[in-house]
């Protein structure tokens, strides 16, 4: 069954045991993003410590893909400088838009490489990017506010 290709164990693990879930204080900015086709939504908060992403907390309703990718996101960006976090985001976005044509770099994306299979399903790419869009927006807001 092709399904396993998409729903890698790693994804299902993050889905069942999401990292960093729940909205926390303090935070610098919050972003609410919604996927207009399916109604999935995420509210995501960012706390910056100078250039460092010191916390990402989130809540929302969504499918396994959107929930797992947001969980992976927290692993990838928390504790890292914003610039590095954005590089990871770019790599993840590129992977998701690759239609399975890119070999992801585990050094950069860690558990994120599990989403390579998802990129073959264009309708799910938006799911995988939902949390990342919120992250991008929240960072922009916190920097705009700063």
């Amino acid at each position, binding site marked *: 069954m*092709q*399904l396993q290709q998409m*729903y890698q164990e790693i994804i*299902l693990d993050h889905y069942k045991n999401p990292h960093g879930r729940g909205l926390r204080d303090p935070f610098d900015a919050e972003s609410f993003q919604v996927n207009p086709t399916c*109604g999935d*939504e995420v509210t995501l908060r960012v706390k910056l410590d100078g250039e460092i992403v010191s916390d990402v907390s989130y809540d929302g*309703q969504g499918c396994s893909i959107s929930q797992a990718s947001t969980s992976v996101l927290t692993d990838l960006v928390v504790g890292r400088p914003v610039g590095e976090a954005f590089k990871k985001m770019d790599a993840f976005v590129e992977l998701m838009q690759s239609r399975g044509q890119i070999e992801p770099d585990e050094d950069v994306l860690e558990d994120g490489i599990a989403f390579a299979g998802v990129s073959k399903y264009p309708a*799910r790419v938006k799911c995988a990017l939902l949390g990342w869009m919120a992250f991008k927006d929240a960072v922009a807001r916190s920097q705009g506010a700063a």
Partner: protein
Amino acid sequence: MTTTAAPLDVTALRADFPILSRTVRDGKRLVYLDSGATSQRPTQVLDAERAFLERHNAAVHRGAHQLAEEATDEYEGARQRIADFVGADFGELVFTKNATEGFNLVAYAMGNAATSGPEAARFVVGPGDEIVVTEMEHHANLVPWQQLAARTGATLKWFKLTPDGRLDLSDVDSVITPRTKVVAFTHQSNVTGVINPVDVLVAAARKVGALTVLDACQSVPHSPVNFRKLGVDFASFSGHKMLGPSGIGVLYGRRELLEALPPFITGGSMIELVKMEGSTFAPPPARFEAGSPMTSQAVGLGAAVDYLSVVGIERINAHEHDLTVAALEGLSSVKGVRLIGPSDAVNRGGAVPFEIEGVHPHDAGQVLDSLGIAVRVGHHCAWPLHRCLNAQSSVRATFYLYNTLDEVDALVDGVREAQKFFGVA
């Protein structure tokens, strides 16, 4: 229209639909349960459109040459057959690009009434006036009214839903009042299949002199509909949901109203006289068909209506009812499945939405897709309805004449498969 009670010969019918014999996802046979979003096309419709394009294509209403005459005849002939199919007169049908345009046409034309002549005064809306919709509406028959209200200062009001997803009509007179100018509502919900009591709403609207606008997108393709008998003022539906082409919809308007309604989209073919200083407009339906129309698409929709008539719309309706009953039964036998909307098939068309505990609709849809089963997941352009029924989104199976009981079984099996895959059963 055939009224014989003989059941459909679905196997024979299916042979008319080329796409149904294809496979998906590594050789799975296609189980297409997404006709509520868009239907598939029989060869008869494809052939009719192609024959038109290979033999008669020309600009309609504009040329004096033979092709133009033939094209005009085919285009207007289709209008006549479609009018017959829905109980309307020839001049009461306007071709639009989809049903959505139809609702917008009425809403914008009403907005234009304020700057039009005295015959349009009955359409004017403004502060103090009320526009009534329902929480069950597809966005197509909701957002245009929100926007009209926002542009004109009118107030939007709505009927709420009962917990099983029917219209709460317990207090009609507090919703539809003498201030009401329009009551826009769906004939049949695209999510739950719920069929609304058109008579009750038309009577209430008439009592206060309000216009009625019916969303007939999900009723016309699946059941015998006669707009004149229903007594609605306007109605809109789409070709692509009834075996016809995409890119064509139909707006019905009572003759007297269309005659007084100001234009919406303006340009060629809808004018009477054009000077730089100003223009006057043609009578309906031309007034509402600016620009080069959906010529071959009208011909295709005419062929679709012919096809539905030959098969028999009552028989199609009965067949879909059987499938709906089977789906409701099958799905409610699966532990962890929550049906959204009514749990029975009374006053309900062939749409069955549901949730699976512990499996997000998008994930459920993916598992079904991997088995070749095409359903729709999400809010199906009816976000408020989902909120009312406490669902963030849903999985929706919809049926049409070419679906079979086997396919319903495949759906139910697929749901169990999804539960297994996500470890919730």
